[in-house]
Each structure stands twice: as structure tokens, then as C-alpha cells.
């Protein structure tokens, strides 16, 4: 099952110019599935970096603006888009010049994977 999923994610990775990595992690930043190319910054894939999203999502939900859905961080050389699908988190790491709208449009395409991935995380 993993191979087919990775193949599919790899196709999505190729679809957006400047996208380096697609990660689906649990709330602690442990990857359930990931596809990345050689340009991906290693630091951005560490659980210590990825797990901050779940915390931010928990706190952001208290602002009275509804549930926290997406976090977009623009750095000088990279951009990181994280989507709240708790207990799963979708993380997209791309170059700072990549089209953020296209990255956001990938979320519904990753969606069909999530039910199976959620099953793997939920039973642990």
C-alpha cells in the first residue's frame, strides 16, 4: 500500500514547480508517509520543527476566529505550508518562489490518502 501512495504523492510533487517535499505526520511530527527530493532542507523535516504546528493550531483555535486550518510560513529561501488534519498534519515544503495557491490546491488531492493514514495513527 505504501508504494502506491508514495507514487501518487510523487506525482503531486512533480505537479507544482518548486515543491520539494510532501509530508504527512502525526501531531508530534513523526512522519507517516513522505516524499521528498534532494533539495529539501533537512532541518524542516525534523519532528521538533514539525510538531510546533500542532501546538500553534491548539492555541490559534482559542483566538475566537474558528478552528485553525492552515499555517503558511514564508522564510527567505523556503516556504512551509501546513494543513490541520489532526491527528494528521500535512506539510508542504517548497521554495519561496513557488505558487502558494497551487500548494494549497494540493490539499484536496492528498485527502484520499488520509483515511488510511489516519487508521495507522489512530490504532497506535
Amino acid at each position, binding site marked *: 500500500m505504501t508504494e502506491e501512495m508514495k507514487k501518487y504523492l510523487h506525482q503531486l510533487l512533480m505537479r507544482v514547480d518548486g515543491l520539494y517535499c510532501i509530508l504527512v505526520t502525526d501531531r*508530534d511530527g513523526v512522519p507517516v508517509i513522505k516524499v521528498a527530493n534532494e533539495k529539501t532542507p533537512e532541518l524542516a523535516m525534523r519532528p*521538533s520543527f514539525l510538531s510546533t504546528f500542532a*501546538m500553534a493550531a491548539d*492555541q490559534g483555535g*482559542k483566538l475566537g476566529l474558528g478552528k485553525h486550518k492552515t499555517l503558511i510560513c514564508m522564510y527567505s529561501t523556503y516556504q512551509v505550508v501546513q494543513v490541520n488534519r489532526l491527528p494528521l498534519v500535512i506539510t508542504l515544503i517548497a521554495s519561496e518562489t513557488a505558487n502558494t495557491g497551487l500548494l494549497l490546491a494540493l490539499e484536496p488531492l492528498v485527502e484520499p*490518502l488520509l483515511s488510511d493514514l489516519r487508521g495507522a495513527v489512530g490504532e*497506535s
Partner: protein
Amino acid sequence: MGCCFSCKDDGSNQGGEANERTHLLVDPVSNNTTIQRVSSEDYSSCARSLPKKTDEQSALNQILQETATNVIDVAALDSHVLEQHEYHERVKHYAQKLQSGSRWTVPRRTPCLLLDVPAPEKFLSAEPLSVGNLDLITSAVSKANAALQELKVEHKEDLVVPFRIP
């Protein structure tokens, strides 16, 4: 006579009847103890019969808890740092779970306006559009365009109508 408060006749004239000495409200404490004794197994009735003070305390606690969860205290956020071995164990566990799952099929793509053509030379080498058809299309389009240009709103009634307000 002239006695404002007397407990002497308390016992004599009770007999279960209501009089001026009967409490309008049942004593909460004594009432509770009896109820608790009778239905100690039933949690719901027990909860209902809790003394007022405890109710207040639990309500206050609830408010406190709700407030605490609604407060954003960045300094108090504890980042759960995952141990290296725990991380690897989890990665392995997820990989196993995914492998053991049923076969996953790639979702069907939604139809796109632009589609790949398997043999483009077939389409490219097809007969071009005849001059007659091209003329027909051009004239039809120019007529439709002219008709659209001439489209006007015909004014028939007054747009502002005075209401008959007495």
C-alpha cells in the same frame, strides 16, 4: 396566652399535618443523607442530591477550568520532545501498519477541459475547415455580436412610483 414562641406543643399537634411550625422548605442536609442512603448505587440521583455548597464549588471549578483552557499562555507551553528511539519506533510502527493495510488505489482524476490526445498527427492531418463553413461561422458570430450591441432597455413605466401615503 401571650406566648410568642413555644416548643411545648410541638410533639402533640404534629401528626403529619402542616401547621405554622412546619418547614416550608425541606431541610437540605437531612434530606440529602436519606436520599444518599436509599439510592447510593444510582449515581444520577446522588449527583442531583449533592449539597448546594458542593454544587457551587464544582461550578466554580468548571469555570476555572474553562478559563484556563481558553487562555493562551505561550510561556507555559511545554514542547513534548520526542526521544530518538521513540521516534524510530513510531516510524517503524506506522510503516508496518501501512504495509498491513489493504491495497490502496489511486483516486480517479476529475475530468479536465484539456486532455492528452494519444495520436496528435491524426488530428493535425485531418481536413481543414472549408471556406464556406468558416464564412458561415464568421457571419453568424458577427450577427450575434451586432444583435448584442443593439440590445437596449425599453423604458415603459416610471421607475420611481409615489406611494399614496395619506
